[in-house]
Each structure stands twice: as structure tokens, then as C-alpha cells.
């Protein structure tokens, strides 16, 4: 088990959603400061676009996982909300 949902899980990305969002913010800031050489700027642009895509699909495709702590065993068990 890992802590948190990984963005772009299964691929090369190992960043958490939070890390991805913060990285994206940093990239936009770096680019808007406009002091970067072209090659670096283009690399950041590509990385940023990839993060946008990954974060968006994480939000749109995920379903919150709900677990219940079994307080006797300390194990986590899947918890289903009963429909009304």
C-alpha cells in the first residue's frame, strides 16, 4: 500500500496530487518570469502540460476510496456506503 493516490499511477510519475499541483504552479511561475533559455522553457512547457493532463484525469476519473479501521485487528477494510 502507498500513501495517497499517485497521479498518473502506473506510469513513470511518482508524484502525489499535491506534489503535482505544486510542481505545476512552480512551472507556471518560472515560465511567467520569462528568464529561461528556450530549450529549458520548452521542457517545462511539456512537463506542465503533462501535469495538467494527469491532474485533470486524476480528478475526473478517481473515486474516493473509503476504508474502515477494524479496531480489533488494526486492519483496514473496505467500507461501502449503503444506498438509501
Amino acid at each position, binding site marked *: 500500500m502507498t500513501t495517497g493516490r499517485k497521479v498518473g499511477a502506473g506510469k513513470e510519475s511518482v508524484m502525489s496530487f499535491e506534489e503535482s499541483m505544486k510542481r*505545476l504552479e512552480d512551472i507556471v511561475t518560472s515560465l511567467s518570469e520569462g528568464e529561461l533559455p528556450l530549450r529549458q522553457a520548452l521542457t517545462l512547457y511539456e512537463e506542465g502540460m503533462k501535469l495538467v493532463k494527469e*491532474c485533470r484525469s486524476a480528478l475526473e476519473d478517481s473515486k474516493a476510496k473509503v476504508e474502515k479501521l477494524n479496531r480489533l485487528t488494526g486492519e*483496514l477494510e473496505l467500507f461501502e456506503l449503503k444506498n438509501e
Partner: protein
Amino acid sequence: MTKREPNAVEQKDGGPSDVLQRETPRESETKGSAAGFLTVSQLNRRVKELIDGESGLHDVLVLGEFSNLKPAASGHLYPTLKDGTSEIQCVIWAGTVNQLSISPREGMKVFVLGDVGVYEQKGRYQLYVTDVKRFGIGDLYAQLEALKIKLKEEGLFARKRPLPQFPEVIGLVTSDGGAAVRDMIRILGRRFPVARIVLVPVMVQGAEAAEDIASGVHELNNLRDPRPDVIIVGRGGGSIEDLWAFNQEVVARAIFASEIPIVSGIGHETDFTIADFVADLRAATPSEAAEKVVPDKENLLRVLTQSQAALVIETTELLGNLEQGLDEKIVLLNQAMEEGLEFRLNRINHIAELLASLNPRKVLTRGYAVVRRNEETVNSIALLHPGDDVEITVIDGRAEARIRRVTKHEVT
């Protein structure tokens, strides 16, 4: 409940004098009134009648603390009921005492039900008690206030940690049945589906609830995989007694000891428990707690769209700038080339002039001639021998000639 038993205690004298006493005031009442004054008895009678006729003084519920509960020989009680500033004399007849659901004790905070009446002989109004109930909530409130002051002085209410912006693991300490947990899970899942929710089911009311809630908070703090980023301690609405577990010191201590920030969502908007004061953030309800804990998906999607636009704009601008720089360089280059060309043209002209000046035809115009022998320009006498045929070119024609004699100059 036994109603008043008039004449049972006050008129201790009893007997024939009782009759006399009763007669006398009545007699004097008319006399006195006529005479423009009242006897003491008449006055007390008036007061008694006034009070007896006042419905607001019957079946009143009075809150206070009992003192002076020593029973009289008759078994009746004449306690004093008081609060911080006032007191009233009470009468509890022996028959009533036996029927009370509790036995009143010194200092006990109670609700007293009774009628206000006048003990004429002593000119004293007093409360004739028909029932007594322990004021549990009052005790609890007193304890609550004391605990609040204590914890506040210890600094438990002052610590407010920031919440994580994107909590990916959210701990819930609440009952696993009921609306509160459902509402929280639904809201968390809708707003931030990236989240993982770990529920620790606890009892939220009853004698063991406080310990259970405190333990739930500890258990989430001890969880390592996954490690919660934030914890909601919640419970749906209920009476103040239902929420009482969240006023217990053990819960307050557990929340304060939590290394993970805690948001409380207990009861309704108007309910404030000690847990609310100790929590890093108080939400009015469990649902509001869920909303305060996670960012909203729709907002995040908007942020992503904005980021994407910013990436495109910034990069386009950068490329634009570079292009502009390139254009400027091209202009400079063209300038340089034009300047270079002019320089070269000047040079070429100069060389052309030079060349022109070296043109052999120009030399011929000055009267010189070119001698060729066998198509070869003669530039030395050594090439010529007597009898050789040569061609002589001057500026405007040619002649053929034969060498007769050759003389070499001695070059010094």
C-alpha cells in the same frame, strides 16, 4: 404529590388558643379597617390572600441549591433554597419527603416544584415543595465551565495549525452508522475524489463514548500506512446531553495530543463543545467539516485550465520574444552586409582604376610599341637574333620587320 397540609406545622400551639387566635384577627380586621389601620394579622392575611391568588406563584419550578436540610422531629424538612445572591425558605412535608425520587442533600443543585405561600404567624413567605429534581445539566454545565477555564489556561484552545491544502488521506472519527458519516463521505468524495478516507468507528454517545472517541483519535495518529493528513471528529445533531462526550476532558486531551490537524464538526451550528475549542478548526456540522477539509474538484479543474492557458501564453510569448530578437538580428545582419558590400564596391572600383592604369594599350598611346616574335612578347634582347621576323604593334596598327643587328645593353 402531596399538596400543602395547612396548619400542620406553623400553628404549633394548636388547642383552644388556636380558635382564639383565629377569631381575633377577623374581629380586629373589621375594626382595624374601620379605624384606618391594620393589625399585623390583618396585614399578613392580606398578603397571604394576594399571594394565594397569584397563579404565577403556583406550581413554579425554581432552580437553586439546598442547605439546612436537617429534618425536624416531625419528619418535615425546612431547607433553605438559594442561589448566588438570594434564598427562600422551603417546606417539605414529611409525606412529600417520602415520595421524592431523590433524597435532597446539602449543596445539591435542584429543581424544586412548589407553591409560594405565606406563613401568617411569622409574616414569612415560603416555598411549599411538592417535588424535587436533581439539576443534572446544571452540574454538567458547572463542570463544563470549570473545565473550559482550566483547559484554556493550559493553552489547549490556542493552538490552531494550518490544514493541508490537498489532504490525500482523511481520517474520520465518528459513528459508522447514521447520517453524519454518510454525509461526510459523500461530500469528501464529490469534492475531492483523489482522497482516501479512513473511518474509525466510535461510539459518539453514552458513558463510554468519550474514551472511545479519544482512542479513535490516537489510533489514527498511530496509523502509518496510510498516514492521515487531517482528521475530522464528527457527530450529527442531538441534544446537549447527546453531545456531552465531546465536552469531556479525555477527548480534549486526545485532540490536543494529535500530531495530525483536527477539524471538529459536532452537532448543529449553535452547538459549541470543548472539542470544538481544542480542534485546529471548528466546523458547525459534520458536512461543513467535510467541505472545509478538502478543496473542491470544480475549482481545481478551473485552476488546471488556467494553468494550461498560462503555459501556452507564456511559452508563446517567449517564442514571440525570441522571434522578435531574431528579426532584429536579421535587420542588423542586412545592415552589416550592405555596409560590407559598399566597402567592397569601393575597393573594386579602386582596383579597376588601378587595372585600367596598367592596361598595356594605355602605354601604347604614349608612343611605346610591343614587339612580338612567334606570338611571344619580346621582353629581352636575348630572344632576338639577326634575320628574325618580328611583329611590331603600335596604338593604331601593326608592322612586320626583320632584325638586322642585335646589340645587348650592358645593364649596370
